[in-house]
């Protein structure tokens, strides 16, 4: 069993706080809609890397934390992130075999689902101001995936670890 594949609590905390900070860092107005969907990237990353430790509960709490920070209704991101984690768990075995462009497309779709769920839930509280570019963040997240996926580790290693555990 490879030790490097397991998630230590410290690395989980560090990654979660880093993703939340990146999600609230102020950006210039023209680039803000294209802020990458860091939370989806983080959830997919951890699910691919350590599915035994990180699952929907972690994603739910991470989404709830960003809900609290953003200040709107509590819950939409918790909902969206737990759905992303579920889909990533289901897709995991296939994603490990896919090429990088295919993985990017999958990350885009997962993130787009999360954004749609989020807007849909916010619609319940009367927020109608959805801009047409609301999937820009999903697109930039997909283009960030090659960098993130380098940290996931090779498929052979992950599968060896899966088999051993």
């Amino acid at each position, binding site marked *: 069993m490879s030790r490097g594949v397991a998630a230590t609590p410290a690395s989980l905390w560090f990654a979660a706080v880093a993703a939340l900070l990146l999600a609230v860092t102020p950006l210039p107005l023209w680039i803000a809609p294209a802020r990458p969907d860091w939370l989806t990237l983080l959830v997919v990353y951890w699910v691919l890397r350590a599915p035994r430790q990180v699952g929907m509960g972690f994603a739910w709490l991470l989404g709830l934390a960003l809900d609290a920070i953003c*200040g709107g209704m*509590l*819950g939409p991101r918790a909902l969206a992130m737990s759905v992303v984690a579920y889909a990533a768990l289901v897709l995991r075995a296939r994603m490990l075999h896919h090429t990088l462009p295919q993985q990017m497309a999958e990350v885009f779709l997962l993130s787009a689902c999360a954004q749609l769920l*989020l807007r849909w839930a916010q619609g319940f509280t009367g927020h109608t101001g959805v801009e047409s570019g609301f999937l820009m963040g999903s697109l930039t997240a997909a283009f960030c995936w090659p960098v993130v996926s380098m940290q996931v580790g090779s498929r052979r290693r992950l599968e060896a670890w899966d088999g051993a555990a």
Partner: protein
Amino acid sequence: MVGLVLAAALLMLVDSRLGLLGSGRAMLTDASAPFYWLGSLPGRMAGWFGEVFASRDTLVAENRALRAEALVLRARAQRLAGLSAENLRLRELLNSTALLEENVLVSEIIGISPDPGLQLALIDKGSSSGVQAGQAVIDASGLFGQVIEAGISSSRVLLITDSTHAVPAQVVRNGVRVVVEGNGRIDRLDVDYVAPTMDVRPGDLLVSSGLGQRFPGGYPVGVVESVTNDPGEPFSVVSARPSAQLDRSRHILVLINPGPASPELVLPPAPPAPTTDVSP
């Protein structure tokens, strides 16, 4: 999976429809302030370096410009004292209530909500400084928003451009009353329920009317940009540009509970009594 989705749905229901998380939300406001503070650290470090390493000439020039501006503003304030005294006397003649004097609290914006669907700002003053939910917030050039959650040392401000926000306003030129709604874009306001026969033109300044008891009257809300009449529609489509610099302001003013204006502050000292009234 189903449990988590249900839990999230329940949370949304409890939070948005039933409003059972009152004090808990105020705590969350305080808890989220450090994230905004840390997240904006790189930007503020850049600003700090700019200040520390600014050249002497830049500082002198800036100082001079500020002095000149202060002089102009002081000159305007002199006239304001006289005008407000006159206004108060006229209002007394009309038997109308005295205008309220607002106390303001200077506050700094810590962060803007990263959610593009929400127009929320976090400010660095909370209930320990007297901030309460419902207070109006202005910046140097107009109405900014209102406080919706007050934590102990930080509060959340809903901007007037949020798609759930509306301000009762009126046109300065002729006093026509309108409702100004946000639509989720930070540089645009919608003016609702404007009948095609109403006298609203591009360039009109809209100020808060004070109706609705939430915002004090007289603060600039926006400037009408376009009026489109469609004969098939019952109302004109009117859009305005916010007066406040919603995307730029760093310092804002919270209007703390207004108290009644004290006449002795505004009125000149009472004239000496006529000699004929003096008893021998």
